[in-house]
């Protein structure tokens, strides 16, 4: 397969989002050119280095119902259509040419739906995150669900999949990050998927003894005798198991007074799956109702740049990923690649990425704290699993390892046409 450079058109509601990092890699490492259509972008200091240097970011303005901050759940598809139409309008108005292939991620917001009208012959590789099951996974497992949850919660989950279904039937080539995610989708679609993780940035997230020796984070010094447990999520919410994290921290701090817990993430719950806390500071309310054993040893760092996340993870003696059944967060892989031993919930999504006791520690939700206590003082075991985890994660999920396969796929699709 040759490696001729391609012109890529990305569409994702937020930049860099999920696809921005790989766009950056393709520009830097393959000499591709990329245009990224998005609705909102991170501030310049959080953008990938190739932004403006081969990776052009163009924002689109949404109209209609999408302009509203809140949208009735019955109208979520309509909101997505506003995004899709806005992306199409910008592509049409800017006459973005040439384009060899389009890469899209709707994240529930439409994305590439109308682009074939402007680019009728151009293949589209579409990233699919998730397919809702009415009573299973994430926060919908009946066993965990508050019985007073309104009917509309399950109804919304059944209705929300329509945006994925019309994307599928729009002539795209579907792509997702894991076999587990693939298995969520209706059986008629599963065979079509490219299953490939978008990769993690191993320039930032790799074992680095020098970074580990630097014992400050966010301006605070970490005592030499302290040991650090970490939690990283877009926001520390129920979905990612912040409540469980606090329980584990409590047990560890009872065992070892030198434990410092660091939680990274935007206070505001951004994922709409937690309808009860969406837009609120779940972590704060949880800490209010369940006061921590030692507030001075629970450090909350808000939304952090990738560099800051890397600093925190470099200091981690145990990274905890106690999330509900949901696609593993990128930060879990980043922690593993950094060389932190990872303790994660034992569920299918994590089992696909990690081997219990070999590359990470996996335990059922109710046994996470026990497991943390059991391994905490076994430094040799922690070190061995961390080392094996870093090696396996970098080899499998580092962008240099994962993305050449994506390049092959892109070239194949371009050769084949739409």
């Amino acid at each position, binding site marked *: 397969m040759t490696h001729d450079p391609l012109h890529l058109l990305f569409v994702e509601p937020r930049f860099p989002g999920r696809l921005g990092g790989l766009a950056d890699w393709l520009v830097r490492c393959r000499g591709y050119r990329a245009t990224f259509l998005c609705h909102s972008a991170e501030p310049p200091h959080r953008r990938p280095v190739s932004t403006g240097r081969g990776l052009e970011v163009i924002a689109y303005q949404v109209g209609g119902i999408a302009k509203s901050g809140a949208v009735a759940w019955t109208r979520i598809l309509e909101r997505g*259509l506003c995004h899709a139409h806005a992306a199409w309008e910008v592509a049409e108005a800017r006459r973005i040419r040439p384009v060899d292939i389009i890469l899209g991620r709707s994240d529930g917001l439409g994305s590439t739906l109308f682009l074939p009208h402007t680019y009728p012959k151009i293949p589209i590789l579409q990233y699919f995150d998730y397919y809702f099951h009415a009573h299973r996974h994430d926060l919908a497992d009946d066993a965990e669900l508050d019985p007073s949850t309104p009917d509309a919660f399950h109804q919304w989950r*059944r*209705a929300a999949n329509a945006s994925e279904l019309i994307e599928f039937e729009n002539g795209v080539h579907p792509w997702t990050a894991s076999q587990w995610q693939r298995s969520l989708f*209706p059986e008629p679609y599963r065979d079509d998927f490219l299953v490939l993780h978008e990769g993690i940035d191993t320039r930032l997230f790799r074992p680095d003894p020098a970074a580990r020796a630097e014992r400050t984070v966010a301006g605070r010094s970490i005592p030499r005798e302290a040991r650090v447990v970490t939690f990283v999520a877009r926001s520390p919410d129920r979905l990612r198991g912040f409540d469980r994290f606090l329980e584990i921290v409590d047990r560890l701090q009872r065992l070892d007074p030198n434990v410092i817990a660091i939680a990274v993430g935007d206070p505001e719950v951004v994922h709409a799956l937690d309808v009860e806390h969406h837009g609120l500071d779940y972590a704060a309310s949880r800490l209010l109702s369940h006061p921590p054993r030692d507030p001075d040893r629970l450090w909350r760092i808000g939304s952090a740049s990738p560099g800051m996340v890397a600093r925190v993870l470099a200091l981690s003696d145990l990274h905890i990923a106690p999330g509900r059944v949901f696609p593993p967060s990128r930060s879990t892989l980043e922690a593993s690649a950094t060389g932190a031993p990872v303790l994660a919930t034992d569920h299918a999504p994590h089992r696909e990425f990690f081997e219990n006791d070999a590359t990470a520690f996996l335990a059922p939700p109710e046994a996470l704290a026990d497991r943390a206590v059991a391994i905490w003082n076994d430094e040799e075991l922690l070190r061995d699993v961390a080392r094996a985890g870093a090696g396996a994660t970098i080899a499998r999920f580092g962008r240099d390892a994962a993305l050449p396969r994506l390049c092959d796929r892109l070239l194949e699709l371009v050769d084949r046409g739409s």
Partner: protein
Amino acid sequence: MNILFLHDAFPAQFGRLGLELHQRYGWHCSYLIQNFSSCPLPTAEMLRSLEIHRYFVPPSTDGNDEGGVPWPRSYGRFVEQCRAVYDAIRQVGHLRPDLVVANGGRGAPTLFVPEATNAKILTYCEYYFARSRADLTYRIDLPPAEPAPFFPRVINAPTLASLAQSVGGYSATRRQRDSFPERWRSRIEVHFDGVDVDLYRPGPRTGSIAGRSVPPDTKVVTFVARGLESMRGFDIFVKVAKRILRERKDVLFVVAGGDHTYYGWDSYHTGPGKTFREWTIETEQPDLDHFVFLGQIAPEELADVLRRSDLHLYLTVPFVVSWSLFNALSTGLVVLGSDIDAVREVVEPGVSGLLEPLFDADRLAERALEVLADPAAFAPLGAAARQVMEERYSVDVSIPPIRDFFERAVNMSVPD
């Protein structure tokens, strides 16, 4: 067996079917509907034998009613309809169906039915709209409509969402089934639901139509559609009629159908306040002395009209074939139709009817004139059509396989 049928209207698609299942096999058939249709009306026997409940979809939260929903809102409106169905099942309370069978013309409103009952759901897969070159977008001879690049990529959202949680589906014809994406077809069976060959049968000709005396030597050409609209080729029919009238003046064109556009975007080029029928008459200026517009008529009246007809024109774009086509064929009429796959599935050209290219009005007129000039030569086509309807599409032939399918569906696995 206890079946719950879901449909906007009654009797529509399921009234006759439920009555047959009840009368033949003693099944209990209940219905959740929004409205009773005026054409055809429910029969007294249906009202006596079937359990019918109405449900109401509350007005749209943003002030748009059903008729005025802009296309980006259509899925939201569908979701609201699904909620209304869910509420209705819970309110009625005693419905304990083994199977829910829902019409999926624009998506079966079954999304939330699994929250209200454990019954398996079966979707009537009426049609899957194409992104281009069929149905809504086929009439490229007409001015383009603003939603054309967009809505066809969205219109199937309700259909897909409901199909994804059904145990399966069925379509009335192979072509309807094949309109669906290939990946879904293996879950959709083909079961025609039966033409009433007793009502629509050859027979003595009436001497008048809609109170207008029709001399025996007058040639009658019929055109029937629920709505007189572009997707059913009403304007092409008028063009063909004009050409026929150039050659002979003894022809009466009898048109049954309403002024509403049920499919497509005719209002975009007719302008507000004007029906497609009015727009076509204004554009084509046919000699209206040779036309009778009946509006929507009852099945019995339609059967009489078809029996009086010498030729039936059926000029649809690629889309669901109309009941009227089956009715005309069952009456033993010579049908001249548009040569598209959906019609070809039912009409074998030169054997059970005649097919010509939809847009070739001259050729259609030539063929029509041949039929009108020598009815005896073409009579075998009508006889063959009648035979096909009796043997393959009649109620007696169609109902047993549907019964079998419904029984099997109860034991099908719910999709993972």
